[in-house]
């Protein structure tokens, strides 16, 4: 069982890593999946910070709806 204080250090570092990977990846689908992972980790961090209401909204909107819209928009682009 990992202690809660350690999770508060690991998860923000992972959020920053995922956010940097969004800018680094050249493939658009990979960048969007990294954005989805960032949103999911952000929802987990909201839950650990005793805000389950915001966590449900973040997981519902950030991790599914915006990612679906991004992927639908990328579907209309061409690979070079």
């Amino acid at each position: 069982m990992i202690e809660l204080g350690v999770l508060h250090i690991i998860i923000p570092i992972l959020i920053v890593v995922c956010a940097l990977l969004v800018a680094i990846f050249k493939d658009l689908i990979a960048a969007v999946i990294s954005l989805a992972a960032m949103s999911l980790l952000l929802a987990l961090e909201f839950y650990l910070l005793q805000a389950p209401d915001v966590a449900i909204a973040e997981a519902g909107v950030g991790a599914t709806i915006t990612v679906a819209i991004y992927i639908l928009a990328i579907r209309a682009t061409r690979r070079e």
Partner: protein
Amino acid sequence: MMSKIVRTMASLLILFALIYGLYIIMHGHLTPGGGFQGGAVVASGVALLIVAFGSDNIHKSLKEHHLSILESSGALIFIGLAFGGLAIVFFYNFLVGSSIFGHIPPSGPNTGDIWTAGVIPFMNIAVGLKVLAGLSAILLVMALATTVMEVEE
């Protein structure tokens, strides 16, 4: 349209997404969540259907002007409930004490009574209706617009 495995799993999982979203809307006054969160969960279920079955197949049974009517009716129900308490004050909770959602909440640690909070559950349902219809319409229009562009190229 995706493969048969994806379609079978999507048609199974849409039930759980719908039930979870409606549970979040219905228990908005007791547990974390509410109209917006539950509506977003239901709309993510619609996103799953659009990805699995393709936007053209979904568009046969889910038209965006029907979703527009649903969204407007959600807003009208919310405003109507707010005007319902206008005899005393705007947004007055006129259902408290009646038999519909009008019980007095129990104090101390308890499992929660669903029949409390007066007009708040109805307002959660109205907001949930508006959010799920609005987000589903955005996703559907976005999917249809990108398929049209694919055909043109």
